């Protein structure tokens, strides 16, 4: 009887502690995002024209994740002022083999050379692509600290401890105008945030949505840029 009430008391304290930690850290588990824009030319898009967002995958160290490319595309296409975005895989397959990691144009000057191929021009016209956006970047996790240990016994189980880590997202979008074969600008998004995982009986993840914030900020800025705002 005495043991049961002590256990119940401990559990209650644990829940209170978790609540306090969650509340406190919830405020701290936020993200800082910085957006930089560099414009090299005028932009604008007509009704019926579309853009394509492609991830750079030439580097040996990392590849721009498909999910991030998709996230930016979905956000740009959303809303009343949404822009038509050609899905990456459909575009890359349709223009095979010109946009593969080994063969994709690296500079806007290469685009001019590529557009000299009649089959490429034909496909570009089919999709009515006005801008090609190259996304390059990744999210890295660093400064992992703390430890959490979990145990289970006949009377129940639980976890105790604390863990934290930092996420840094760094992405760059280079915008090429297909009609003039020139680079019209670059937008970069840097986001960072600290995530926490307190565990008093139950682990509560307080995740800083670093990549999601980088995606939404970059997509919003990119949409404004393409629309000519």
């Amino acid at each position: 009887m005495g043991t049961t009430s002590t256990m119940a008391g401990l559990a209650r304290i644990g829940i209170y502690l978790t609540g306090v930690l969650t509340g406190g850290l919830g405020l701290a588990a936020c993200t800082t995002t910085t957006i930089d824009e560099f414009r090299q030319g005028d932009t604008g898009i007509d009704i019926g024209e579309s853009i394509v967002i492609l991830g750079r995958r030439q580097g040996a160290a990392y590849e721009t994740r498909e999910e991030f490319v998709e996230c930016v595309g979905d956000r740009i296409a959303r809303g009343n002022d949404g822009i038509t975005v050609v899905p990456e895989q459909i575009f890359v397959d349709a223009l095979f083999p010109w946009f593969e990691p080994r063969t994709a144009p690296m500079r806007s000057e290469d685009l001019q050379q590529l557009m000299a191929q009649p089959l490429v021009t034909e496909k570009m016209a089919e999709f009515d692509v006005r801008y090609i956006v190259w996304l390059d970047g990744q999210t890295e996790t660093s400064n992992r600290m703390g430890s959490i240990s979990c145990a289970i016994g006949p009377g129940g189980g639980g976890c105790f401890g604390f863990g934290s880590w930092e996420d840094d997202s760094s992405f760059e979008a280079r915008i090429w105008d297909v009609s003039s074969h020139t680079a019209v600008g670059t937008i970069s998004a840097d986001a960072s945030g600290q995530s926490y995982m307190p565990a008093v009986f139950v682990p509560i993840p307080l995740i800083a949505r670093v990549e999601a914030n980088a995606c939404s900020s970059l997509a919003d800025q990119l949409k404004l840029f393409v629309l000519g705002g």
Partner: protein
Amino acid sequence: MEQAVRSEFISSGMSSSRRYCRSIVLLLLAMVALNACAARSVIIEGSYPTPNIPPLPMTLGVYYSDAIRDYVYTERTDAGKDEYLVSSGASHIALFNTVLPAMFQQVVVLDDPAMANERGVDAVFIPDIDEFQLGMPQKTRLDSYEVWVKYNMRLTAPDGDYIADWVMTAYGKTAQQSFGSAESGINDAAVAALRDLASNFSISFTNVPDVRDWLQPRLQ
């Protein structure tokens, strides 16, 4: 007496069914143990897009040797035991059967390169796999599956004379998924490598020095 016989009969029936159960359990255990020791088979399956390139105005014969048709790479553990058997022959043939008809006006698959003359082809293409390497996350300590393949490509005249012989490499990788199987990781990395081969082959074919020299008078 009758009761004693019946009880003996029941007990013998019980012991035989127990023996039967025991042998089934042993058999199942043996099967599990054997399955744990057996190498896992991965048959590469993927689809490849058609290249957007102008076709060369000629008829190409292609010969797939048994070496490429039945190509199986064996990945071994550090202890030297077979871990994965990666069969990529069918996928390689599917890839070339997609890529070559886009690169040449006509393509003829030959069962024997000696039939080239009677089939009226301008040249015979013979692809082969020289080397296959697999990078597994648990061995490379990277978060991805990697496949690297080295090919030997040969182009001969219909009578078997040398036209060109060159080496090509292909590389593909895929990120390790949290709940994905090793088999699907290997498959995706191999399909990426084959796609890399297709893109590089279709663009660089006419730039191979010996092929270029052979093509020049034919394209004028």
